[in-house]
């Protein structure tokens, strides 16, 4: 009896994962240079629509995946956090480009050294900017991750994460 229930649950979870990974509604949080490559990846030549992620939603409340595309400065950081908070669960974050991963070569007073100091990140796509092939690779990695996630665990990713100090 227990076995059958587990079997059903895991099948259901994999079906949910399958459905989720092919209907990614993304929110492109485009700030900088990487946006140009994001455009290239999203348009006809490379076409992210093949992966079910072709429909950007420009409202955080309707999006599943937050694509943080480009350098985040300290002035922009509160905005990014707020947009992340506005997204509904389940949600994932892709750090697009090396500035979002680590701050890149902008190691100075103005730049956040990696957005994972502010919000949790699921997939890091390095490159300055990453080539569209690289972006597609990252997207497929995200799909793998979504497929493997348990739907109930995926509900609360933020809890697993260290909550940053509020602004003083």
């Amino acid at each position, binding site marked *: 009896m227990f076995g059958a229930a587990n079997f059903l649950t895991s099948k259901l979870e994999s079906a949910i994962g399958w459905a989720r990974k092919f209907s990614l509604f993304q929110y492109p949080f485009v700030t900088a240079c990487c946006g140009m490559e994001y455009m290239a990846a999203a348009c006809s030549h490379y076409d992210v629509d093949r992966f079910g992620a072709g429909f950007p939603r420009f409202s955080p409340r309707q999006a599943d995946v937050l694509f943080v595309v480009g350098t985040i400065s*300290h*002035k922009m*950081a*509160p905005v990014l*956090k707020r947009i992340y908070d506005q997204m509904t669960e389940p949600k994932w974050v892709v750090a697009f480009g090396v500035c979002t991963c680590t701050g890149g070569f902008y*190691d*100075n*007073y*103005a730049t*956040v*050294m990696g957005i994972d*100091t*502010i919000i949790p990140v699921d997939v890091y796509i390095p490159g300055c900017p990453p080539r569209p092939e690289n972006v597609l690779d990252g997207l497929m990695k995200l799909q793998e991750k979504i497929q493997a996630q348990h739907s109930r665990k995926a509900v609360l990713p933020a809890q697993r994460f260290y909550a*940053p*100090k*509020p*602004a003083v």
Partner: protein
Amino acid sequence: MLPSQLCEALAARFPEAVLARHTYRNDATVTVRPEGLLAAARALKEDPLFQMNFLMDLTAVDYSAFGKRPPARGAFPSSGVEVRPEDGVPDEAPWPGPAVGERFEVVYHFFSWPLKHRLRLKVPVGEALPEVDSLTPLWAAANWFEREVWDMFGIRFRGHPNLKRILMYEEFAGHPLRKDYPVNKRQPLIGPVN
């Protein structure tokens, strides 16, 4: 007009205000006293001799570390040989250097579209009272440029309608392009200081 003629003409108009002039690498450059800035700028704009209708750029330089920056520490010290210009490049006068004694220089670049000439105007500004007259009554472009100089260098502009930070946020303390501001001193609004 040739760069040297431009400098001469401005110096002839304002003999007391002009502190120095040079045409290093064919860039006409005139240094004026802060008191003479507004009059000189107005003359540049309105005098048919100059007709500088564009304020192309407005910035500042912090000369407090000029020539005092420590050499890079490496296994082999550099011989420090400078590149000399090629033959044919006008190098009749070496660069006279920054105005002695004052920490900042506010640098204006003017361009005349009708006459196709450029002029650089420099104003030395002291550290104790970093303040110069605003050029906003003459050029609308000065508004944002001056806000940026205030933001980056902490130089105030007398008569500016809205002198507040433009690139950094209000909570930011200090002026990042001053030479004594460390390059990676961060003041985050949220998140850890790293």
